[in-house]
């Protein structure tokens, strides 16, 4: 660049022939031959590509290309469409070696009983892997990634307590049909003292110390009598009834009233009293239409292993 024009002329480098300001010339250094041919190659490639694959927009549609892709739709129908990456992706997901392997195992799992899924090593490995994915996609939104739940909102699945029964069949039914948990609020039906008495009695059921013995006795009478009627669902021993989703109040797990999170005795009473006063209304949707029977089965075994299985 810094060469004088004299140098340029002496060296005989080819110029474009343009001259500016009397002596400014422009070198003409051609592109390397291989580069030019590679460029022509890409041009030819592009033209061939236009005919084979979707390429040019035409009005509100586009040229579809000659290459096709077939895949299976969700209802099992086999369709062939002009190639597009989504169809290719669906096809790969259906026909890849891993997909085929998974299909064999799903077949095996659909024939096995839930007890077999839990006791046969290879089936259990498969169940836990698929179950983990299904749980993450469908359950973790409420119950948490590890099934830890949220006290008062969504039951924990990682402990050994179940509201609606803990057998494999119970869990499968809970997932398939959904659950509707309801406890009426007692505000108005019981006065403030009565509510507090009941709360103290409920705490005493699971051995929480610090209550006033008389209050506990008064609470017990409300709990077991027609005034409160709590025993209809929770039984007079407070051990609950899985057929109506009534929790066991005599164990150490507090799924609805945040007793474990409360500090002093007074706070614990307040936590229970709040539940008795306001009642509980919780819904779990049914997964019957959304997941296949096999998926629900795998999920039930996974959830069983999360907490209940001994």
């Amino acid at each position, binding site marked *: 660049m810094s060469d004088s024009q004299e140098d340029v002329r002496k*060296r*005989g*480098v*080819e110029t474009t022939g343009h001259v500016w300001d009397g002596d400014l010339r422009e070198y003409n250094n051609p592109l390397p031959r291989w580069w030019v041919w590679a460029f022509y190659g890409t041009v030819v490639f592009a033209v061939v590509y236009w005919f084979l694959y979707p390429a040019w927009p035409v009005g509100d549609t586009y040229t579809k290309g000659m290459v096709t892709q077939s895949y299976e739709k969700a209802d099992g129908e086999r369709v062939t469409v002009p190639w597009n990456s989504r169809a290719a992706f669906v096809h790969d997901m259906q026909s890849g070696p891993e997909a085929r392997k998974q299909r064999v195992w799903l077949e095996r799992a659909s024939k096995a009983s839930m007890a077999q899924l*839990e*006791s*046969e*090593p290879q089936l*259990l*490995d498969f169940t*836990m892997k698929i179950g983990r994915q299904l749980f993450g996609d469908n359950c973790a939104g409420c119950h*948490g*990634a*590890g099934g*830890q739940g949220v006290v008062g909102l969504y039951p*924990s699945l*990682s*402990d*050994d*307590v179940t509201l609606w029964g803990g057998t494999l069949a119970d869990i499968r039914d809970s997932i398939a049909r959904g659950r509707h948990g309801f406890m009426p609020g007692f505000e108005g039906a019981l006065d403030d003292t009565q509510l507090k008495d009941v709360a103290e009695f409920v705490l005493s059921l699971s051995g929480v110390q610090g209550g006033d013995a008389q209050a506990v006795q008064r609470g017990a009478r409300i709990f077991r009598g027609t005034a409160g009627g709590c025993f209809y669902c929770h039984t007079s021993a407070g051990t609950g009834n899985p057929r109506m989703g009534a929790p*066991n109040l005599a*164990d*150490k*797990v507090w799924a609805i009233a945040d007793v*474990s999170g409360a500090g002093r005795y007074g706070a614990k009473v307040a936590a229970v009293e709040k539940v008795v006063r306001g009642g509980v209304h919780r819904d779990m949707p049914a997964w019957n239409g959304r997941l296949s029977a096999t998926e629900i089965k795998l999920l039930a075994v996974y959830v069983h*292993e*999360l*907490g209940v*299985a*001994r």
Partner: protein
Amino acid sequence: MTESPVQLYRARTAIHPRSVSGRFRNAKYAVLALAYGVFFLLPWLRWSRDVGPQQALLFDLPARRFYVFDLVVHPQEIFWLAGLLVIAALLLFFVTGVAGRVWCGYFCFQTLWTDVYMLIERLVQGEQPARIRLAKAPWGMAKLFKLALTHVLWLAVAFATGLTFTLYWADAPALVGHFFTGQAPFPAYATTLLLTVTTYVFAGLAREQVCTYMCPYARFQSVMFDRDTLIVSYDRARGEGANGRYKPDRELKERETRQAAGHGDCIDCGYCVQVCPTGVDIREGLQVECIHCALCVDACDGIMDTLGWPRGLVRYTSQNALEGRRTRLLKPKTLGYGVVLLIATALLIGSVAGHPDIDVSVRQTRNPLSVTLSSGEVQNRYTIKVDNTSGRPLRLRLVLDGLPGAHMTVLPSPELHLRPEARRALYVKVRLAPEPGQARRLKFRFRLQPQGRTSEPEPVSVPSQFYTR
């Protein structure tokens, strides 16, 4: 477009090395024979194993197992490969520091394959002058035939190389059968094609350009040189004398008369330049293109023998030795590389020799860490993966160590029957009654106790922890 004086690009000038015989040439042929023997025959060596393929060396990628004689490498032991690479790098540093580009000159596959390609060239086209004549000759049937034959033979060697490389990754006899009947998997064809093309291009067409322009090792090896490093060098003082090298014409035939006239021992025959595979003139000193193959040493020694003068005008020496100083081999640098090399080797051997027969990994469920149960007990969950790498069937039982009062539930069962090479997961729940004043984190161990009689492996004990809240 005329030539300009400053050219940043220079087209390759073809190199037609002359053949030479001598000590180093023989040593190089020996290395070549050994390397080719190992490379081409190793995949065919059978090996008896209870489980796995009957091939001595097999890198089975689909099954994720590397079979190296009696050693089976599993994916979790792939860091051995890193160790091997570290050792290779250190060995290269060490050897280069002491003896220069020994790797380049004798062992590098670029050098070995180029050597074979040059042999083929000589076999078909003749010795150097004939080859130069052929290159300059106008196109004709004879030239076409000779060149075509050369390239066909080159391609044959390249294909054999590519196919042999592919055989290391699958059962060799079966793969060869499938390969030629069109039933081999696509990667086998792709690998063979890639290796065939690169071998042909690098050893046949590119040759010394690979070493000069492409190879990173060539560049950083020259950085590891010092004045004590062994190099192939021309003894300028002896060769040039006071008045430079000179042809041995009638007056200057005897060494004594030459020395009296101030001429050195170099008779400027150019043999050292003609034999050089990279086309350098060793008499111009240490050059980055020089791969230290020592063929010029053989060439010059031969000339000196004919003249009856002492050998070693071109020889292995060091810059210090050339300048009359002592060559020091025991230096902190070489000692340091040597020590690190020994440590790395010992660590790798120790790791390979001491790896357990059962590979166990314990993963604790962290979400949630601990759960209070209806009984008031606290529960932690673990997933334990057990890999039977012992090569024989095992019966194991999972046991808790160092967590008194704890109960354990294991799905599918605490008893574990593992076929060789099988991998199982155990889903474990550990429960412990809380006690006042207990630490939040308790350390304990899971132990896999072999069940059965003799020749069982040692129990494997893996540390873990229990969170009480």
